[in-house]
């Protein structure tokens, strides 16, 4: 449905050139929700704006709904944009138009008749739960309500694709939840393909099927959401995940942590387990079979879509040979073991 092939975007030229996007390839199949996550300045905004050509790629091609956007300009481009809805972080509603007229705007731009507009706008307001606010002005609405109006507006021209530019970043967690629910309903009931950019793992976790990680203008990871949350491939992916799970070792431990093992140290490990491993009593087996005691410093279990993900930071107490054996044992049971460092034996 959406296809970016070798898309690059460069601002300026020569020495001062800024490469906002570097050779980006992305395929979003029809009817799915795809998330692009990255830190600010990574190129997310440029990426999503290249889809409807608010930013024209310097190189590469963008195809939406079988139409090569990058070949279009002028009125053909405007026509194609009618088929692509977009919502924004700051809603971008016209302050001088009431809710009804805001939703009517794209239809007015298409030259639709008043009667057609009315038939289209009212059910949309119904759908986003704001039928009673039709005559109010954006200033009278809460952030969540404004985004609902923006969603209704984006759907007015019956698009096949919806682009979400940090659509929930300006909202509180509860409102974020209800907006994400609305987006999922839209995806499921209307079959609209959604491409969203965000810096919040929560958004990806809640509604995305697939996720791409963007860093310095390049897509560095592309995975099913379940895979990304259980086994991110890149360092950045792991950082996002750890931030999201808030599973970083306690400060007091970090201070004692040494990079290299010493004569009298214990390894501190981060264990990530998913699937069957979550329900297996591995820790007690570790004690029994490898003769290693496990001191759990932090632990957490998250369910991501249909998967369960467990995370733990633990100190392995035993001789070097024993702890190595224990780590091998864990790895053989599909756990990811990451050695964070080593601490001196306290006893």
């Amino acid at each position: 449905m959406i296809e970016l092939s070798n898309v690059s975007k460069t601002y300026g030229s020569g020495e001062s050139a800024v490469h906002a996007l570097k050779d980006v390839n992305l395929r979003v199949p029809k009817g799915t929700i795809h998330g692009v996550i990255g830190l600010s300045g990574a190129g997310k905004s440029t990426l999503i704006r290249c889809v409807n050509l608010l930013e024209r790629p310097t190189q590469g091609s963008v195809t939406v709904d079988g139409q090569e956007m990058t070949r279009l300009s002028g009125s053909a481009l405007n026509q194609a944009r009618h088929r692509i809805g977009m919502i924004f972080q700051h809603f971008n509603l016209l302050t001088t138009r009431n809710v009804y007229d805001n939703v009517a705007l794209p239809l007015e731009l298409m030259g639709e008749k008043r009667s057609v507009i009315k038939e289209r706008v009212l059910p949309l307001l119904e759908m986003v739960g704001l039928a009673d606010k039709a005559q109010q002005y954006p200033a009278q609405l809460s952030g969540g309500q404004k985004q609902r109006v923006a969603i209704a507006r984006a759907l007015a021209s019956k698009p096949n694709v919806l682009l979400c530019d940090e659509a929930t970043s300006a909202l509180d967690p509860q409102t974020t939840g209800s907006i994400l629910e609305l987006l999922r309903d839209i995806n499921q009931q209307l079959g609209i393909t959604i491409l969203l950019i965000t810096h919040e793992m929560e958004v990806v976790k809640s509604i995305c099927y697939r996720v791409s990680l963007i860093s310095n203008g390049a897509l560095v990871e592309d995975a099913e959401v379940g895979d990304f949350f259980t086994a991110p491939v890149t360092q950045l992916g792991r950082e996002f995940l750890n931030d999201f799970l808030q599973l970083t070792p306690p400060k007091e431990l970090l201070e004692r942590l040494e990079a290299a093992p010493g004569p009298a140290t214990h390894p501190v490990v981060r264990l990530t387990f998913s699937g069957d491993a979550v329900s297996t009593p591995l820790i007690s087996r570790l004690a029994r079979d490898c003769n290693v005691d496990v001191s759990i410093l932090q632990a957490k279990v998250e369910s991501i879509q249909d998967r369960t993900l467990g995370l733990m930071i633990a100190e392995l107490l035993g001789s070097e040979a024993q702890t190595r054996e224990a780590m091998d044992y864990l790895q053989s049971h599909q756990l990811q073991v990451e050695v964070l460092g080593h601490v001196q034996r306290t006893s």
Partner: protein
Amino acid sequence: MSSALVNLILQATLDTLYMVAISGVISTLVGLPLGVLLYATRPRQILAQPVLNQVLSIITNVGRSIPFIILMVAIIPFTRMLVGTSIGINAASVPLTIAAIPFVARLIEGALNEVSPGLVESAQSMGATPWQIICKVLVPEARGGIITGLTITLVTLVSYSAMAGAVGGGGLGDLGIRYGYNRFNPTIMLITVVILVVMVQVFQSVGDYLVRKSDRK
């Protein structure tokens, strides 16, 4: 006060209003599109035309930097060509209009500048043409600022029109100079000033009211 004098004051007031109205309307009709052009042809704007933008900007700056009293005298041949005379209220309206056009244009440009670029971007994402963006987004969203700008213009025109008295333009300024100043009649001077103050007050109040009414923020 003699009835002749009252008539004189009444006539001068009407003359001032006439000059302000004529130059206000025409300068708005020309200045509004010029202001929109100044804004829309900027680099990376919806009608980006950097060269045209530079040219318009320079013309506007030149127009704004010429002192009104000099402009008035300098364009006398043009005024004569246009209205057939260089004295009287019709003649005074010509330099007033010429001076007000770049003034209006810059104020309109400033008002448009206050519109969030996000609104333009979202209109573009809906497939709006530049013309639609101007008519349905930029100008309506900037209307508070536009009304403020036009109010400032009218008030400025009132004081400029008083200067027109210096070249036999008529109006309250002319009356104040000829009767109040040259003939040492403090009463007439005071009355003309009071009328001018009231006029400015009324324009400002009406403008403020319209801005408030249009504001939905």
